């Protein structure tokens, strides 16, 4: 299938400052692409470049097979939802939604019909005569989506659309956007700084930092095989444990040694890892450390650790211990008998771990 959005070698400078460096992204029709990263990473700028609201300094943007690099936003066949909603304050909801059609000279009957469709789809029929000032945050959000939906574009662009909503509403709207994507089969590009939003919505995630793409992949790829320390740390909550360790070839596999407070180092044997340098950073998700006996499998290795803290969270209990000079969080079952200050046998699932180079931060396995 031909890509519906194809960005090649995109660069963006403000004067001498490079905002975006050599971005290459391409998505298929029906994809839900999420651009995620900390604030200032250039994700919103990239979205504005795709929309044509920011001129680019180099590279090419193709939408639907057409070169759109120098095409004005109105001719790119896109619709955009803004973080501030950007509803036209003096117009009613109905006129907000139909403004684009009116500007493009659609006849009144078409406007009316599409308005009805979209209003029904988003359940905002009762609000059509109100002004944005009379709406709640969630309602404004819906109207902003309506304004995008009514255009029926090739590409939907969302710029942090949920970050102005309260936590409960955010989760609701998140589900709704996902449903909408599923029902419409539309292609969407979505910017967020919230990694949970990224994981739940995306079919494809682009993790960015400092204007550079760190990793592109499906949510599972990003989560299970982060390309570098930044991605490993940024995606997932609680974050991946990143433990400085020493690696030594040992027969078929590798012997991994981690400092453990004052007592003897913990030694694990990873039968699959090969060719690791002497110093590595071991990345292991909290859920890949269990209480001994609760996890079995080929890569599972057990070791006794001193527990510093126990944090019950209802469904799970998090225990914190110290390995390689770092706080290491393990996600245990809720009924664990772990006590702070006591030793506990923990099971590390080495089939799921990542190794990173301490020097470059890149993934090694």
């Amino acid at each position, binding site marked *: 299938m031909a890509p519906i959005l194809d960005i090649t070698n995109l660069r963006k400078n403000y004067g001498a400052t490079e905002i975006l460096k050599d971005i290459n992204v391409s998505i298929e029709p029906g994809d839900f692409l999420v651009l995620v990263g900390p604030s200032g990473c250039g994700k919103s700028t990239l979205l*504005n470049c795709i*929309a044509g*609201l920011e001129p680019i300094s180099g590279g090419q943007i193709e939408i639907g097979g057409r070169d759109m690099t120098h095409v*004005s*936003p*109105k001719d790119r066949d*896109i*619709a*955009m939802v*803004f*973080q*501030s*909603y*950007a*509803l*036209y*304050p*003096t*117009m009613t909801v109905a006129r907000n939604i139909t*403004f*684009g059609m009116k*500007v*493009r000279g659609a006849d009144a009957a078409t406007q009316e019909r599409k308005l009805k469709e979209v209003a029904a789809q988003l359940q905002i029929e009762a609000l059509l005569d109100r*002004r*944005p*000032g009379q709406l709640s*945050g969630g309602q*404004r*959000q819906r109207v902003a989506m309506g*304004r995008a939906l009514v*255009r029926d574009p090739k590409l939907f662009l969302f710029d942090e659309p949920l970050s*102005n*909503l309260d936590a409960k509403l955010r989760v609701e709207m998140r589900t709704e956007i996902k449903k909408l994507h599923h029902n419409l089969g539309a292609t969407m590009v979505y910017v967020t700084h919230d990694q949970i939003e990224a994981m739940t919505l995306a079919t494809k995630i682009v993790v960015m930092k400092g204007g550079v793409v760190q990793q592109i992949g499906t949510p599972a790829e990003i989560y299970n095989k982060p390309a570098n320390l930044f991605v490993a740390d940024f995606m997932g909550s609680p974050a991946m444990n990143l433990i400085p360790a020493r690696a030594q070839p040992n027969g078929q596999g590798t012997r991994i040694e981690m400092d453990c407070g004052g007592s003897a180092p913990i030694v694990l044997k990873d039968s699959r890892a090969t060719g690791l340098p002497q110093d590595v950073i071991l990345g292991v998700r909290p859920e890949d450390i269990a209480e001994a006996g609760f996890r079995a499998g080929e890569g599972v290795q057990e070791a006794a650790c001193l527990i510093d803290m126990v944090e019950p969270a209802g469904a799970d209990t998090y225990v914190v211990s110290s390995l390689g000079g770092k706080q290491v969080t393990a996600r245990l079952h809720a009924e664990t008998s772990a006590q702070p200050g006591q030793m506990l046998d923990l099971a590390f699932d080495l089939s799921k771990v990542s190794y990173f180079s301490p020097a470059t931060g890149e993934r090694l396995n």
Partner: protein
Amino acid sequence: MTDVTLAPAAAASRRNWSHFALRWTLFTLLGLFALFYLMPLFVMITTSLKSLEEIRTGSLIAFPREVTFDAWRTAWSEACTGIQCEGLRPFFWNSVVIAVPAVAISTMLGAANGYVIAQWRFRGANLIFSLMLFGCFIPFQVVLLPMARMLGLMGLAGSIPGLIFVHVIYGIGFTTLFFRNFYVTIPQDLVKAAKVDGAGFFRIFWSIFLPLSLPIIVVTVIWQFTQIWNDFLFGVSFSQAGTQPVTVALNNIVNSTTGVKEYNVDMAAAIIAALPTLLVYAVAGKYFIRGLTAGSVKG
């Protein structure tokens, strides 16, 4: 037991009393200030309603014994401004014909300028805005000679279009400042959304920004109208017989009488000349609504 319950009550009543006393001192003071400021207006109005005879014999701050509108009639249509004796009426209309288009044009230009400077950032936008701002601080006197030369070259010397031109030019700095400061508070996302919707530069201005601008239009109109209506220096410098604004005529009425000084006519003329600005405040002040746009674009 009683002591314990009474003590706070007594303290409370003392607090109440001091609060009460403070309030009344404040109101009395404010009332006195208001009276002080209203005094000249009171004298003007009462004097304009008295006959000359009564002014000569009576006290300055007394109410008129017999109310007469003769002085008003004289000031409006009979008083002499130099050799012409048609009162303020023709000059009043001159002022209207100068002020209304000058206010309208300078406000429109200010809105367009402010829109561009605030929402369509371009290279050098800040420099241009600074230069316009600088224009606000140039004293009237400095531009008199160059402006006279310009008007002469344009063939507008001594004409009403010439005066309109001068006031528009002089007003653009202020009107641009007002609109620019208003429009920078409007999120840029609004322009972006409209661009994606397919609207162009003028469409966005006309359909989205102007309807939002009522509060700032009112502010600008009040400011510009007051400035232009009350202007004397440009009016006296760039006009000739027949095109003088009301302020110049008022000066002529007051300063060119011979024989007995007709204080009642002077006062009536001064009030007539000041009425339109008062009217603008009274009418437009109502629309001075704040927060017309509050909550409409933010979450």
